[in-house]
């Protein structure tokens, strides 16, 4: 493993010469045969620690934080970004890929990251990672993705007020930002000046994980189902207690978001850079409160799945062909026929499920394979649209 972290070797493995020698499969297809943590292009990670975040309770899904050691080609991440995680679930021998927000502070190339995951009932991947995965296991990763990051509005000073509104496990990207602010925020020097660069690094390492101050006013408003369900409870309590510029407001139980309450906490909220992440209900209420304010940035949770249709033949819902920005009412015809009826011209071949010419990604929704009758609601699943019909709402990447 260490051999591949040396920069000259990494550069060689990514060179055009090695690429030409390993064609057409690519050098990673050879390296992986010897050590799964050897990779020039693919990103993988070894699970080095798994920690329970909430006490196990009957009515709430368990949450765990996984610490991952990525391969040396991990480029690092900006706070708030997410990563695609591929898991080869044993037994079914299938790789499932899902997106998870990174919960640790911004990372540098090759650095460890953490994912904090709630084991959803229907989520094979999340349930597997939280309940069955073991230390030492290898996961497939993407590089960090997403623009839900700590990018502030241009015309504002860099020490302006920041507001985070999150619900449930939507707390994870905000937590990454908060941790980053506390780690990298302005460090007060001995003479009251501001330290930067290596001086700040030294200061921080002597203090530990945090320098203890965000260097600005930060409001952190979070909604959780119950105190037992609260992720990062201890850490948030510690942050709330110390003098660091951060105020933490935790709302538990049935207390819904209200504009009135937000106005009380942050009177000029619509003019404050705000990051919103949570379930659909919360997102709806908050976006309504912000109207069209450009200060609001948000990250959606993918709605779990559309409801299954009642009986055969009677299909309700909307089929959305996302890339073509086209949608129509779902019918019992195959998705290929429905796409064509909407004037799209997707690639196809045999039209009978043999040749895979028409395979595309279904991003969400339930579909049925007309050959087998098998239904599936897995998100980001590859389907052959010539032998697949919708069962309710679905989104196709076409």
């Amino acid at each position: 493993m260490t051999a591949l972290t040396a920069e000259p070797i990494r550069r060689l493995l990514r060179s055009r010469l090695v690429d030409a020698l390993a064609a057409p499969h690519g050098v990673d297809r050879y390296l992986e045969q010897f050590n799964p943590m050897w990779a020039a292009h693919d990103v993988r990670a070894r699970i080095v620690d798994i920690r329970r975040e909430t006490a196990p309770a009957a009515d709430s899904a368990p949450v765990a934080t996984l610490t991952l050691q990525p391969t040396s080609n991990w480029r690092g991440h900006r706070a708030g970004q997410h990563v695609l995680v591929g898991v080869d679930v044993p037994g079914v021998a299938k790789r499932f890929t899902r997106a998870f927000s990174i919960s640790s502070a911004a990372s540098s190339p090759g650095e460890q990251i953490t994912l904090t995951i709630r084991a959803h009932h229907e989520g094979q991947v999340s349930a597997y990672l939280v309940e069955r995965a073991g230390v030492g296991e290898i996961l497939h990763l993407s590089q960090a993705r997403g623009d839900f990051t700590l990018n502030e509005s241009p015309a504002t000073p860099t020490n302006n007020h920041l507001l985070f509104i999150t619900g449930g496990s939507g707390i994870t990207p905000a937590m990454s930002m908060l941790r980053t602010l506390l780690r990298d925020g302005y460090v007060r020097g001995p003479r009251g000046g501001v330290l930067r660069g290596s001086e700040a690094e030294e200061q921080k390492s002597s203090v530990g994980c945090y320098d203890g101050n965000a260097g600005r006013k930060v409001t952190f408003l979070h909604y959780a189902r119950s105190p037992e369900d609260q992720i990062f409870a201890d850490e948030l309590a510690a942050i709330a207690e110390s003098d660091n510029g951060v105020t933490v407001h935790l709302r538990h139980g049935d207390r819904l978001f209200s504009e009135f309450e937000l106005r009380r906490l942050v009177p000029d909220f619509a003019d404050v850079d705000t990051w919103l992440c949570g379930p659909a209900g919360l997102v709806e209420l908050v976006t309504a409160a912000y109207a069209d304010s450009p200060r609001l940035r948000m990250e959606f949770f993918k709605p779990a799945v559309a409801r299954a249709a009642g009986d055969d033949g009677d299909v309700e819902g909307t089929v959305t062909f996302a890339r073509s920005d086209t949608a129509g009412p779902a019918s019992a015809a195959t998705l290929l026929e429905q796409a064509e009826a909407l004037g799209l011209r997707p690639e196809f071949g045999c039209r009978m499920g043999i040749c895979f010419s028409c395979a595309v990604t279904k991003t969400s929704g339930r579909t049925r394979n007309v050959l087998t009758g098998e239904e599936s609601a897995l998100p980001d699943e590859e389907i052959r649209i010539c032998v697949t019909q919708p069962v309710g709402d679905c989104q196709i990447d076409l």
Partner: protein
Amino acid sequence: MSTDTTATTTDTPRSRIAARVGMTPEQLEAFGNEMDAIRQRIIADLGEEDATYIRNVVKAQRRFEVAGRALFYLPPAWPLAVAALSISKILDNMEIGHNVMHGQYDWMGDPGLSSRMFDWDTVCPGEQWKYSHNYIHHTFTNIVGKDRDVGYGILRMDPDQKWHPYYLGNPVYALLLMLFFEWGVALHDLEVENIVAGRRTLADNKPLYPGLVRKIRRQTVKDYVLFPALTGPLFPLTLAGNATANLIRNVWAFNIIFCGHFPAGVASFSVQETEDESRGQWYLRQLLGSANITGGRLFHLMSGNLSHQIEHHLFPDLPARRYPQVAAEVREVCERYGLQYNTGPLHRQLLSVAKKICRFALPGGDAAPEPPAPRVTEEPLAA
């Protein structure tokens, strides 16, 4: 899993292909349902074993390849190096490449084994092959005038292909195709025979050139420049070794593949009799249009299980390691319906193919033992 297979059976009242073999429409439908049932049973059973199997084959292939490339540094081990590299290329192209690019392992969700990502160690770009093979050949199997794999646009392999003096060279063309098989496969998609016949223009090929040229360049630079150069003074030996491995793979693949559809007794079909085809007739056509080769496990592995061409054509997207498992069942169904199941040892099937290549060099040829209905040949392939 429910068992509604509605999408399929809107049988035309009379299937002429079924009539050829004395099957009633009801029997044809029942036959199709039995095939669907086999397919669904296997699909429901796919899992760890199939994944482990293909990963082990890939592991073996990568090891043979690395060993082969490395052994070229030891001149006395030259024959071993060539053998290892030949095995690597055969495994890569047949049990891995052909099958993975059929989508047989797409259900695993592993990009390294996905039909959309995989490309094989030949000069033919996988992207182009998938169109002509998975779509044209597997959908229109043995329909003369539609399936371009009937003679590959070069040979006359069927009495319904109109004779032309050009075909006197049939045995020579076959020999050349064998020696340069990967090149034949690569150029197949340019449909040269259709350009000569005026059914396709050179402009139609334009979009294919960049991919083809890129793949050819990568393959030739790798095998004939870079790896030889890396062995320094042994350059000529390594070059010759790589060329030999490619040649061995060409000869082997050609022979296995020609035994799949060309032995005596394999049926061909006209465009007319396959119009508005039912699922049952599609299965029947795949069965009648393919032939198996008998052999041991190692032989099946090295042939990419194309020794089970019948099962492959019935179930092209099932992992090939399942073909031997379902073969007995398919055969039993065939016996019950009185259908021919064409199989035999390699030497016999090869001899049969060789005879056919020579016979069809000359005009005429044995009309297949059917047809009660007049067979109409559309668009004979002229070269």
